[in-house]
């Protein structure tokens, strides 16, 4: 059997890679994709803990995370399409109108 900490280490690595994408990339689309990666690494943790402690709540939480992620992506891409229609750019640094 695979030890529990292998799964958690994989989730940590994927989470750090996703955070690197969010912090370092300047393309809005890639930032959104890295966000998906981070949410997915959390799902691995939920399911691994649910499996190793024999609790269905891990899988149920993962189902809810997936549903909320779908909603988030739909709204985010709608905002992105509206944004690009008003201001044709995909760079994060160009969208600073609301910065204080």
């Amino acid at each position: 059997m695979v030890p529990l900490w292998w799964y958690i280490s994989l989730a940590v690595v994927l989470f750090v890679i996703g955070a690197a994408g969010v912090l370092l990339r300047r393309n809005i689309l890639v930032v959104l994709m890295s966000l998906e990666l981070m949410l997915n690494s959390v799902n691995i943790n939920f399911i691994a803990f649910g499996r190793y402690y024999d609790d269905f709540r891990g899988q149920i939480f993962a189902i809810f995370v997936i549903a909320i992620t779908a909603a988030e992506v739909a709204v985010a891409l709608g905002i992105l399409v509206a944004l690009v229609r008003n201001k044709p750019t995909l760079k994060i640094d160009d969208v600073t109108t609301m910065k204080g």
Partner: protein
Amino acid sequence: MGQGFFLLFAAGAVITALTVVLARNPVHSALALMACFLQISAIFVLLEAPLLAVVQIFVYVGAIMVLFLFVIMMIDVREAVLQRFVPGRNLPALVLLVLLGVEMLALVLWSSRFSAVEPVASRGGDQVRELSTTLFAEYLLPFEVASVILLAALVGAIVLARKEPG
């Protein structure tokens, strides 16, 4: 054998995740992310969560990534390809990320709570049936709230992406 499969899928997931962050072209990032989600769903199968593996493929690979590819097609991505990373503020972010990773790994490896090799003895029986019974009996209200959130997101996305009249 399980360990070998886990290492294979984990290596695939990490390599494709790195490709997502490092690729110059957003289309390549999207395709690499699809491959990464497939590896993660294989890991869900290893964790004996077949329902979640199928949901992962349906929702992420089938719906979300196709949505991403549609938006990439709608938007002209050629000008965004020139510069990959945010200039100037790379170093603090990198230090922060390394600290984050080292801290999490140190906590996981140091604690004895995560060193379990064998899962707690399973109750056995039909896992998917039990899961859906729990979901629709104990978690019915959150389930309905999630469906209302999805409906609201659907309407919101249509309103946001619609062309202004006039």
